[in-house]
């Protein structure tokens, strides 16, 4: 496991998400309204759609394709058509930088 540098915290608006590609994988990196950071797999578990084009509302991310919803803090699938939970990863602020821990 290693901490990977992602971006400046300021690069993500509060209550928003960006896509982060690393080592052939794709992740979604979130900031909530308080500025806390979170990371999940970048692709929806329903179909292979990037969640970074979706909508962050409170602690949920809504997929842009069929409006399925996950809790991006726990990965829990909340609304059909998503049924399979989303993988989450540890994320932290290191100074002004966001880092995520991936294997």
């Amino acid at each position: 496991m290693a901490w990977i540098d992602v971006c400046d915290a300021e690069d993500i608006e509060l209550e928003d998400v960006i896509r982060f590609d690393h080592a052939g994988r794709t992740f979604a990196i979130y900031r909530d309204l308080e500025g806390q950071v979170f990371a999940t797999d970048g692709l929806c578990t329903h179909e292979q759609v990037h969640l970074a084009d979706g909508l962050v509302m409170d602690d949920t991310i809504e997929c842009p394709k069929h409006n399925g919803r996950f809790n991006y803090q726990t990965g829990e699938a909340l609304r059909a058509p998503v049924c399979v939970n989303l993988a989450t990863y540890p994320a932290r602020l290191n100074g002004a930088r966001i880092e995520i821990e991936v294997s």
Partner: protein
Amino acid sequence: MNIAANHTAKRDYSLTGPESAHAVAAGLASADWYHSDLPRKEMKALMRRSDQQADRDTVLWFALLILTGGAGAFLWGSWAAVPFFLAYGVLYGSVCDSRWHECGHGTAFKTTWKNDVVYHIASFMVMRNPIAWRWSHARHHTDTIIVGRDPEIAVMRPPEMALLALKFFGLPSAVYDLRALLRNAWGRLSDDEGDFIPEAEQGKAVFWARVHMAIYCGAVLWAVLAWSILPLMLIGGPRLYGCWHMVMMGLIQHGGLAEDVLDHRLNSRTVYINPISRWLYWNMNYHVEHHMFPMVPYHALPALHARIKDDLPAPNRSIADAYRDMIGALLRQRKEPGYAIRPVLPSTARPYREELHDVDIARES
């Protein structure tokens, strides 16, 4: 791959037949679709949810249903009841479709339970199994008008004009929908339903079908005991006598346009319509925009349209204009099923990416 243009026989629109395998082999299933460019900031503003407008629209909807249905029932037996039932029919049998649709997407209200409650009520009114149709509609968005993949293709080729005309009276669609509910209530799913409803959700589809059928049985029993069709004029009947507006708007969403393409500008239609129809239909006349960005709630579709219209074909100017357009194409498709309207893009639009869909569409003359 050139499926649409090369055949003249009726295509197989089932989800388990050879067309489905063709679509997968051609890369048309779960494919990447064309999207107009929009900066993330603007997109976020357009996607923003709110309860305000849907609260207001829903209170008004239920108030009108109670008012017109109540007046119709009160005046039952006299001609004075007719205008009330004409209005009640549309409010029940047509408006349910747009409420089902928007609440199914979960975009109408910000509050989840409000979307869910209205979704279930509207599903009942439109005679759709709320679980089966949620999955069917997800597939419609993944594979819009891809033959063998999309379960919601309203106009199959070659088009049968008499059948399309019957749709305005809910036939045979309401019969099919009722039969599907009965089958589901019996604990069985069709092959197509088995294809798009995941196993874990199939039990819920059976449960809700039983709830719907129990209410319909109650209404029939009430009608028999009262020896009057009034209960069925209020429950279930409007799906036949009031569905014309839903059908009128539904047919022009995709009718006469391309099959098997990956650009909603080629297979969907945006139409400028009157404000009453827009309220009844919750702005789904902005259909290209809806398919490109299903995250945008109905009340923000006019703003989305204004923002991306330079990248889209010019909308039809009215419902009549859309029908002129569509009927001409449908008549031609009776003899030439591979024909589809190719909407003309403005010079400001990014061109159709032919490599996305190597389908030979006849050009508009």
